[in-house]
């Protein structure tokens, strides 16, 4: 039985690798000609790169299948559910896919800071604003260093950024820790779920069936965590820490732009704010000017409608009376301040009947 399982695993791994290689070749073929914007745009990911990122979820599923298969599921001659060690060995195969999925979403989205972080550091170093040797990857940024000399302000900015980055890294580690807890709790839930499938006829008979149960268990564990007070605290702190970093990055970028005579986002924002205020004032004035006219027209319309009703009444009272009666009965309920819309509805009905 063990030989059979090993042979299966070997065959599968070779097959999976070949298939994945084939997909990637296919995607690369689809990426089209090289970037037409030339040298300056070489850092831009190509279409195939984006597509490959989208395909990562399927690759993650492939990994999941491989891990499930390599855990030797369902092949033990004895019952693993009565052997805690065997159970742990089997379930440990599911530790990583959840975290990998989360990491995949992060890296593919605008919210993933890590890859931007590296690109930004490189850009700033090229611009000459972060050239002082010191911390690994972030030269000369020790928050404890006293700032002095002509570059004092720049040093302070860099120290603030270093401190913000450190704080973000710490909170991000706490966030990752919570996701690891989700892994553990999800596995426990999967174990509990599987325990309900021990009866004949209820057994899980496909990898996809097992995968769906795993997703259910993980999502349930994640939802519990995501609604916890701890998650709320850490999530809020992580977002705030990331915004601190981004804001400081923007400030330094703007400093460079100002030195190069390039308009900054702050300046554009300032203009936009003033423009919007002017537009608002303009609309208010237009409305104020148009209101008397509109009101006059409305008053005239009401008067004309009343005159028409009077005219109609003088020609044939029986046609009008029911309307007046209906109107009277609608308002004559003894309650003051009948909603105006009821009056309008009646007036509208009167108009229709003419």
């Amino acid at each position, binding site marked *: 039985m063990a030989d059979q*399982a090993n042979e*299966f695993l070997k065959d*599968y791994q070779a*097959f*999976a690798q070949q*298939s994945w290689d*084939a*997909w990637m070749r*296919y995607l690369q073929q689809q990426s089209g000609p090289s970037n037409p914007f030339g040298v300056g745009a070489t850092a831009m990911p190509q279409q195939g790169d984006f597509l490959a990122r989208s395909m990562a*979820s*399927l690759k993650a*599923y492939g990994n999941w*299948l491989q891990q499930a*298969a390599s855990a030797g*599921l*369902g*092949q033990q001659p004895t*019952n693993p*559910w*009565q052997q805690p060690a065997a159970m742990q060995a089997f379930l440990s195969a599911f530790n990583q896919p959840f975290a990998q*999925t989360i990491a995949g*979403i*992060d890296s593919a*989205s*605008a*919210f993933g800071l890590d890859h931007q972080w590296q690109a930004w550091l490189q850009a700033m170093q090229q611009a000459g604003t972060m050239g002082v040797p010191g911390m690994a990857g972030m030269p000369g940024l020790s928050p404890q260093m006293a700032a002095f000399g002509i570059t004092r302000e720049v040093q302070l900015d860099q120290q603030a950024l270093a401190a913000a980055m450190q704080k973000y890294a710490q909170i991000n580690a706490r966030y990752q820790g919570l996701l690891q807890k989700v892994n553990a709790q999800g596995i426990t839930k999967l174990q509990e779920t599987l*325990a*309900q*499938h*021990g009866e*004949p006829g*209820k*057994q899980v*008979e*496909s*990898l*996809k069936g097992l*995968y769906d149960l795993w*997703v259910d268990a*993980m*999502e349930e564990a994640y*939802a519990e965590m*995501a*609604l916890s007070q701890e998650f*709320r605290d850490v*999530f809020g*702190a992580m*977002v705030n820490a990331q*915004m601190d970093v*981004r*804001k400081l990055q923007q400030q330094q970028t703007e400093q460079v732009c100002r030195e190069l005579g390039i308009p900054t986002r702050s300046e*554009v924002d300032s203009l*936009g*704010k003033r*423009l919007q205020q002017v537009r*608002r004032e303009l609309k208010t004035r237009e409305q104020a000017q148009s209101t008397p006219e509109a009101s006059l027209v409305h008053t005239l319309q009401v008067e004309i409608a009343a005159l028409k009703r009077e005219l109609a009444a003088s020609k044939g009272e029986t046609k009008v009376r029911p309307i007046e009666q209906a109107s009277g009965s609608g308002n004559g309920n003894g309650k003051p301040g009948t909603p*105006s*819309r009821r009056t*309008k509805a009646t007036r*509208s009905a009167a108009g229709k009947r003419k």
Partner: protein
Amino acid sequence: MQNPLHIEPQQAFNEIATFQRKLAAGLQNLRGLGEQDYANTPREAIHSEDKLTVWHMKGHHKPTAKVPTLIVYALVNTVWMTDLQDDRSLVRNLLDQGEDVYLIDWGYPDGADRWLTLDDYLNGYLDRAVDAVRHRHGLDAINLLGICQGGTFSLCYTAMHPEKVKNLVTMVTPVDFRTSDNMLSHWVQNMDIDLFVDTLGNVPAALMNWVYLMLKPLRLNQQKYVSLVDILDNPQELKNFLRMERWIFDSPDQAGEAFREFIKLFFQQNSLIKGDLQIGKQPVDLGMITQPVLNIFATQDHLVPPDASRALQQHVGTTDYTEVAFKGGHIGIYVSGRAQREVAPAIHQWLRERGA
């Protein structure tokens, strides 16, 4: 108790091989499919302002409704969910019922819209859109159909301008933003929204998409695409899937100031039901809404929990309040087969009973 897993090695190998084969073959089917069109029900622009357009939707027959209905969608995602494809279109179903349908396409905000406030949106854009439809029909008041955040906007608008709204329909609309099962609300409680908006300006659509994916990370980012492999050999199903993908990720950025106000006032302070909400200089009191109200919520809504919507009954001023529970989710209420059969007829019947 037996081993709950009964998967033979050869069977597992076959399953994996089948998956790989389907994927490899199916990827070829993606070639040439390109971008999938929405339903594109015939329409005419009757009002536009900045990036906003009010569309008059055209059905096969002349409307029989006496009062037109204006659909007010959320600022997140686009209104085309209501007209996604020929056989999954709330708009078409309403038109087929005889309703006269208008909708607001808010457009895609950019830097010029960074300082738009909720006052600009509700007492500015929305008010002028309502006026455009009212004047076109020579009516004092029209029907509003608000969806999700657009439903919240419709409630606020009706409370501030009750004379312009005849009947109000809300769909999957959050009213109580602090129910215990509201994950989005839970996550934003400790966020420094001022720092957030001051830093980002307009809130990028990609970030909004990230948040929505993170509500159910495995289901929305992996399991969904695993299931895709099963329909790769079905061109029609594949097109439907791709059309939905287009809608999901075709998101506008969020105008910074309006976003700041919405998160603070609604999510963090829950002011709409506390009664201390103010938009611009106008107080918003749900008790002022005395029009008939139809409130439709989805029982499996993971974005707007049912209790968040059902709270409306306790706060709205009308005595003519109707609640409809739809068996489905936040998106299914527009595109599922059940939605095609149930939602538009329910709205139509409710409006007709109220002489609209």
